[in-house]
């Protein structure tokens, strides 16, 4: 009995179970080590970039990073109460803009906000040129005339350290100023303070209780500043462009101040996030639903034409003697091995109005010379060229499935009295359905993300959503929107795959054997 209770031991006296487990674990570790380079490679070059791309579609840090003070100040602005934000917002915005212009980040912010409200890109650029020349220079002159110490950054440094709490705007503006000047490779203490610092100082002094500073320099400045001619920053901005006095502009900035935004996704489905909630875009700007719809529709048409054209070819291949079949197979594979660009360009030569097809039709008097067919730079062109390009992806799975259907089935059906058609339709065809499924999934998924062929032969009405993504990546530089469109496309494909699995069952898909 004791022999059963006590564990079985191996030759070296360890329990067999533990020994086995260790051996298995070692085995697993070795297997993992073997695949780990590939795993790491896939992770770094595939998963990580996709994750990064998905992240860009919601990331919106640019507003907060470029104009942090304005974002802060706008939190307290209620558009219901006042049409235009108060002076505190304009002061904050002035400070932010001066530094943004110096860092050259204001044009990018303008471009970003322009996606939500056209006109903001030009507004930011225009203002960037003028913001350094505001009348706040008067403050600088007045303070410097009062005491030359204000011209010395050391004074500011000392005050920011000792009285920073009662001078919040000046202290924060001075800190950013130090960083900005140093980033340019200059020593801040050799520079003259900029106008923007004096404007912040003026506003701090005006809002602090009178004569409570510890440093007499500040108390003097405060009593003198009360007599300065105030410079209205609101008027200064209004003079650049009256759009700065438009409440919609500020509401747009307020709405998009958050670090993460659903804005790009809404944009991808022709909606936009406004201060009053989600709304449809203007009639003229609604194009994405149209493009998604067109992409799906054209991919479907391409898939169906591939089935119609590919099925007879695959059938022929599978039922001919091997020698002939092999030659035909090469004909199918030859275009498959030819460069995609070459094939697309040849379609251009064939399809254009002065091209081969039209010339033949005209020569045969089927078509009149004056009314040549328009076969390219429209949807027809895209469908023809892509059907040809994707055809091998339909034929090959079909062929490999048909090869495995025993000819005896059809013979048996016929011997039981079926006509040729019945034998094919009731016996052969159901057996070939897994091939159609595999081919369709392949062709459809490839088609939905196609880019180069529609770009070359699609004109304006035969392009896919992927062409739009490419446009946003390389021309408009709206990477957030491109990412959102790409994400939607990715999930649309996954959804289709899932639906297909539910309806047909992915186990029924056969790519061969």
């Amino acid at each position, binding site marked *: 009995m004791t022999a059963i209770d006590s564990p079985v031991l191996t030759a070296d006296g360890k329990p067999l179970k533990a020994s086995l487990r260790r051996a298995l674990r070692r085995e697993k570790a070795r297997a993992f080590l073997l695949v780990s380079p590939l795993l790491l490679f896939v992770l770094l070059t595939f998963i990580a970039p996709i994750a990064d791309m998905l992240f860009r579609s919601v990331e919106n840090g640019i507003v907060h990073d470029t104009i942090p003070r304005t974002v802060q100040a706008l939190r307290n602005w209620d558009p219901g109460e006042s049409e235009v934000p108060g002076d505190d917002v304009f002061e904050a915005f002035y400070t932010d803009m001066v530094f943004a212009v110096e*860092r*050259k*980040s204001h*044009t*990018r912010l*303008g*471009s970003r906000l*322009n*996606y939500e409200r*056209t*006109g903001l*890109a*030009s507004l930011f*650029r*225009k203002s960037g040129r003028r913001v350094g020349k505001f009348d706040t220079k008067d403050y600088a002159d007045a303070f410097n005339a009062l005491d030359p110490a204000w011209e010395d950054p050391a004074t500011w440094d000392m005050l920011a350290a000792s009285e920073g709490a009662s001078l919040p705007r000046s202290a924060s503006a001075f800190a950013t100023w130090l960083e900005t000047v140093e980033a340019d490779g200059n020593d801040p203490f050799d520079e003259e303070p900029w106008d923007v610092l004096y404007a912040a100082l003026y506003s701090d002094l005006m809002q602090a209780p009178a004569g409570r500073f510890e440093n007499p320099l500040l108390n003097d400045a405060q009593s003198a500043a009360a007599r300065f001619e105030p410079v209205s920053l609101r008027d200064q901005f209004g003079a650049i462009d009256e759009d700065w006095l438009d409440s919609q502009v500020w509401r747009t900035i307020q709405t998009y101040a958050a670090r993460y935004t659903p804005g790009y996704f809404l944009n991808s489905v022709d909606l936009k996030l406004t201060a009053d909630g989600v709304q449809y875009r203007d009639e*003229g*700007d609604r*194009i994405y639903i*149209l*493009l998604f719809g067109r992409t799906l529709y054209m991919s479907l048409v391409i898939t169906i034409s591939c089935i119609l054209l590919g099925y007879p070819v695959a059938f022929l291949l599978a039922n001919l003697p091997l020698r002939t079949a092999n030659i035909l197979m090469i004909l199918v594979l030859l275009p498959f091995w030819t460069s995609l660009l070459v094939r697309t360009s040849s379609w251009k030569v064939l399809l*254009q*109005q*002065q*091209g081969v097809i039209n010339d033949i039709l005209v020569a045969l008097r089927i078509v009149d010379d004056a009314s040549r067919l328009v076969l390219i*730079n429209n949807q027809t062109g895209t469908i023809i060229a892509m059907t040809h390009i994707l055809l091998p992806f339909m034929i090959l799975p079909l062929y490999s499935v048909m090869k495995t259907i025993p000819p005896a089935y059809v013979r048996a059906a016929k011997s039981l009295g079926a006509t040729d058609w019945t034998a094919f339709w009731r016996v052969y065809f159901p057996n070939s359905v897994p091939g159609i499924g595999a081919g369709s999934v392949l062709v459809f998924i490839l088609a939905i993300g196609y880019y180069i062929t529609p770009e070359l032969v699609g*004109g*304006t009405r035969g*392009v896919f959503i992927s062409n*739009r993504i490419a*446009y946003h*990546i*390389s*021309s*408009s*530089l709206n990477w957030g929107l491109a990412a959102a469109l790409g994400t939607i496309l990715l999930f649309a494909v996954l959804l289709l795959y899932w639906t297909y699995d539910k309806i047909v069952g992915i186990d029924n898909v056969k790519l061969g054997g």
Partner: protein
Amino acid sequence: MKLKKTVLAAAALALTVGPTAVSAELADDITLVSWGGAYQKSQHRAYVEPYIADNPEVTAVWDESSYEAVAKLRAMNEAGNVTWDLVDVVASDAIRLCDEGLAMEINHDELLAPAPDGTPASEDFGDLIVSDCFIPQIVYSTTFGYRTDMVGSTPPTDVCAVFDTATYPGKRSLEKRPINNMEWALICDGVPKADVYDVLETDEGQARAFAKLDTIKDDVIWWSAGADTPQLLADGEVVIGSTYNGRLFSVIEEQDQPVGMLWDAQVFDLDGWIIPVGLSEDRLARAKDFVRFATDTQRLADQAKYISYGPARMSSAPLVGMHADLGIEMAPHMPTDPENAKNTFLYNYEWWADYRDDLDAKFQAWLAQ
């Protein structure tokens, strides 16, 4: 004591600066970005080949990415790995790159060679320095070419022929972007040349331009590569189309196609180099050394031997001679030739820099519908 310190400091300075100055830390590789095609070839023959002949240790690599230069530079900059040393871009892209801090601001007089008579570079290039980052190379123009055999006995002399589908039936090709097209549309809608940008600034003006373009929308093949229109013209696919004047020169003179040049309302534009921000010291030194050579008076004049674009330096103009292979006089083919420049349209860089984002979005939406 003070003297001793100064002497020591000077010696130290000489020691640290000396060796670097002598070995001149120049990188041996240079990656140049350009547009491909005939234009890149003209650059290669006019400046890269002679430069390499003088500096045999240098390997020059071309990257034909100018079309996407802004996007790619931004991506490289974000990744912190700028692999380009010198990028050929059109002026509007240079302005944008400069605005975003992706291109280096330069001192033109310091970096570029003076003219042979000693005129500093900034004066020699003059107004063509449209941005602090931009090193102009050529003046080109976007203009129209037409099929001489498809226009009957009345070849077009006016840019508005593009909008006249009754007299000139058939397809036309236009660039797939708002720049130039919007201006031409307004001019042909009766807006005086001087007022075009004022009108285009308003919503009504933009609607007016789109309405004019709408009248030919179904007859337009939109191009995005400079080689498209010459191909479409050669195939007889379009009766008239816009492209860069150098491409048309090549179709007409080098390939001998039945194509005519319509210089009316040609839009001058500039193309030139920018140096990306973020280069290591040795690469920057090589880029600067190359660009000084490549934009001197003789080199810019040499480029005009291979392509019909006007050199950006005033001092190069008198040196422009014959085409290197065809042996024809190049001056009459330059966009700046008085005979060709009777009616030109001045492209407003600043305006487009401001409004590009706005109009691009509207134009693309208009196209898709």
